[in-house]
């Protein structure tokens, strides 16, 4: 396990790369999902309120 984590002495380069990928790609996915939920709730509720008024 320790040998795997050491990555032949390149641990800093390999694991930092994977960490950046996780942060950036995971961040985009989470941001999209969070934005989707916010917009969905507000847009649908606004549309329903508009329909009730008319």
């Amino acid at each position: 396990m320790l040998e795997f984590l050491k990555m032949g002495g390149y641990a800093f380069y390999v694991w930092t790369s994977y960490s950046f990928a996780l942060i950036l790609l995971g961040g985009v996915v989470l941001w999209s999902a969070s934005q989707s939920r916010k917009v969905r709730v507000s847009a649908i509720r606004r549309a329903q309120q508009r329909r009730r008024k008319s």
Partner: protein
Amino acid sequence: MFQWIHRFGSAPFMYRLAGRLAPWLGGLCVLTLLLGLYLGLVVAPADYEQGESYRIIYIHVPAAWMSMFAYMVMAISSAVFLVWRLKIADVVAEASAPIGAAFTAVALITGSFWGKPMWGTWWIWDARLTSELLLLFLYLGYMALRGALDTPQGSARAAAILAVVGVVNIPIIHFSVEWWNTLHQPATITRMDGPTMHISMLRPLLLMVLAFQLLYFHNLMIRVRTLILQRESRASWVAELNPDTGH
């Protein structure tokens, strides 16, 4: 005969289609990602020249490919929007941009972390790296333009023109290692005489490419749904939806 294509121009149809596809794409993405990472990080042997540092390839190459793929989707959608005024095409282009920018940033950063132990430098202004950096600027410029002008229609049009003009950078990125004397290594997979990579290393790489493709399309479906709701908030079909589930 091709009337079914017209359905893809319908906002409610695309909204529902994206909603049905997104969970499947996400699930398949997780499975292929886990399998690709296991085969790439644990099973694949070390490289005889680069040792274990070559394992950065399993995120760097898929990210670089997807950075170009996402831009092609953005450029083609923008061209469709400009020519046929199809609003859904503009939605797809706008949805694609941040995802493509993220892939480009990952490609540049992981390339840098791979370059330092291999080339002895974090960055070099060679053709491949510089054109990939230009791609990131194109993505950022596109996203900035979308919010820059007074009218949404004007912003959409200006951004679409930038996307279409910027597509010339894609073949430059791809062929840069052949046209110029670059530090970046030439292609090992997309070659006329077949890949030069051993199957034990190639298999996880192709799995990771597939995983990144699924990630892109999953995220694209979510963003397309969000943008459709934003633009169609006054439409009657939106009022029929459940705010908690979106269906």
